[in-house]
């Protein structure tokens, strides 16, 4: 029989280590989680081939949490980039935010891509063919610039197009390793790019980082209701999980024809777009970025959009959003401000 969960590149991607015991069968429906206190004792556990393993596995807090906290202690700000909807520009926004923060040479920035099944960050940052080096102190991120490091599963794949066919627990294991085993060093900002949805990756990143303190989440959306519908769920998730929402960013908002400069709404905001959602939810609206085909092209070729088109309206929109975001995090509007120089 073919098993679907073929481990991809098992040498390159070490098995998750941690509190979860090794299971002999997939978890049943209503599984309390092999590492939970009730493991092996719930009604759902009756008849499960894993019952004995779960029941006898050592319980208590995840022993890896203190290790993660030790790694995260040297990182000043941790920001999650979330959206319930896919393809709205989470990764694009993450990479632009990273480039923007890294413009100041004294700011150290890290990007952690926890979209396991569809990693986009490496290509957008022009580092698709890089691989990760490991040393005794951990995995070192791939450096795009002196002060900009990136970590993604894409760097671990033997072939660029390999599918990562993993169920939840394996994804969680890798996310844990990204936090525990990567030598991030002293960072000012760690940006965490997430996959769409509200599932394993989101629950895990939240529980792993709970003790380390996350500044909050930036929620990205596009203007149309089909997208807002899913984003509403993501905000509901943030509330339930206790993650502070720093603000909503509306991407792909309006399109200016390069030929006649006439504006049109490709993704029509029939219900008021991100701004109305922010007002409805009582969350700051950080701003809107218009659709610019050049952003997509820059992403495809892994170029920094800021450097290439600093004058474009999209850049202006982004700069405003970053200013607003810094405000939400209680930081000065820009890193290279004169006030900062005086302080030091």
């Amino acid at each position: 029989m073919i098993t679907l969960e073929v481990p991809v590149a098992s040498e390159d991607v070490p098995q998750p280590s941690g509190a979860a015991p090794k299971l002999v069968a997939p978890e049943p429906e209503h599984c309390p989680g092999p590492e939970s206190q009730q493991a092996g004792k719930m009604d759902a556990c009756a008849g499960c081939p894993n019952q004995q393993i779960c029941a006898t596995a050592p319980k208590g807090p995840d022993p890896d949490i203190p290790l993660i906290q030790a790694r995260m202690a040297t990182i000043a700000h941790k920001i999650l980039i979330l959206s319930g909807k896919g393809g709205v520009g989470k990764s694009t926004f993450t990479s632009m935010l990273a480039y923007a923060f890294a413009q100041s040479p004294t700011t150290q920035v890290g990007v952690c891509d926890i979209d396991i099944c569809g990693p986009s960050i490496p290509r957008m940052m022009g580092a698709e063919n890089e691989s990760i080096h490991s040393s005794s102190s951990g995995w070192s991120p791939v450096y795009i610039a002196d002060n900009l490091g990136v970590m993604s599963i894409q760097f671990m794949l033997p072939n660029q197009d390999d599918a990562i066919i993993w169920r939840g627990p394996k994804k969680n294991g890798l996310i844990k390793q990204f936090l525990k085993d990567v030598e991030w060093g002293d960072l000012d900002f760690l940006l965490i790019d997430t996959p769409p949805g509200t599932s394993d990756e989101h629950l895990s990143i939240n529980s792993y980082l709970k003790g380390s303190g996350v500044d909050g989440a930036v929620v990205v959306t596009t203007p149309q209701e089909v997208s807002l519908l899913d984003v509403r769920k993501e905000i509901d998730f943030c509330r339930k999980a206790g993650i502070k929402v720093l603000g909503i960013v509306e991407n792909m908002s309006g399109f200016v024809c390069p030929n006649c400069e006439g504006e049109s709404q490709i993704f029509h905001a029939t219900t008021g777009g991100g701004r109305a959602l922010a007002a409805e939810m009582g969350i700051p609206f950080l701003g809107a970025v218009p659709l610019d085909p050049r952003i997509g092209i820059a992403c495809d070729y892994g170029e920094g959009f800021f450097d290439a088109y600093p004058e474009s309206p999209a850049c202006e929109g982004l700069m405003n959003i970053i200013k607003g975001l810094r405000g939400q995090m209680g930081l000065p509007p820009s890193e290279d401000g004169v006030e900062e120089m005086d302080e030091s």
Partner: protein
Amino acid sequence: MLENVKHVVLVLSGKGGVGKSSVTVQLALTLARAGKRVGVLDIDLTGPNIPRMFNVEEKKVHQAPGGWIPVKVGDTNSTNGGSIECMSLGFLLRDRGDSVVWRGPKKTAMVKQFLTDVLWKDIDYLLVDTPPGTSDEHISLAEQLRSVSTDGAVIVTTPQAISTADVRKELNFCKKVGLDILGVVENMSGFVCPHCSTCTNVFSSGGGAVMAEQFGVDFFGAVPIDPALNLMLERQKETTDGVELLERYGESKLCPVFVGIVEKLLAKTEKVVGNGSG
């Protein structure tokens, strides 16, 4: 499982937001317009969009002896007997803003339940709309469908490299699990400016066709961006002229494009059931 369903077609994409749901909706509309009885199963559990797009968000699923009764789209069948029914987790939520925060095992159980417990009645085509990625939902789907003769998958992508990079992973997933690929649809391929009629390739162009060629799979066609479609789907509630979505879709600029795509789909699926050659 799925005894009353003649053909099962999955709509897949490694990338999110490329238009899986809107392609599913349009395939369903076009098939129904061609007289087929269509079922749409939405297994995107954390982000179900199908109910909104068919304007059936407020409908509820009824439990009957033997399973769930899917929600019917529209009141009347089209003149030639085509109809659409759908099933989604969206119907089971108390509030439309509620999040479904589930880990893998629960999602797996739900997918299984959706495949086994829905009472489809004489469906010609069951279209399965999926979430992005190659994880729990997809593995479960592939495992569950192993016992059923699935026709294969329609792969949706947008033209830019960022999207095709993820979709290539999905193609490899299909290969690995032995799922036939019926064809690739390139969505959001070009936008015609309503002011000056110049076509701008907002998300570049041609990426889907190139990818299909590289993987040796059929290319079903390129679908341009049409904001009018989104408006048409969004404004179903306000329009009270009694024209059903099925008819209204006939006026859409995208309708002829999908007629072409569906022709190719029908040609591949109606031939001989269970053949592997292309």
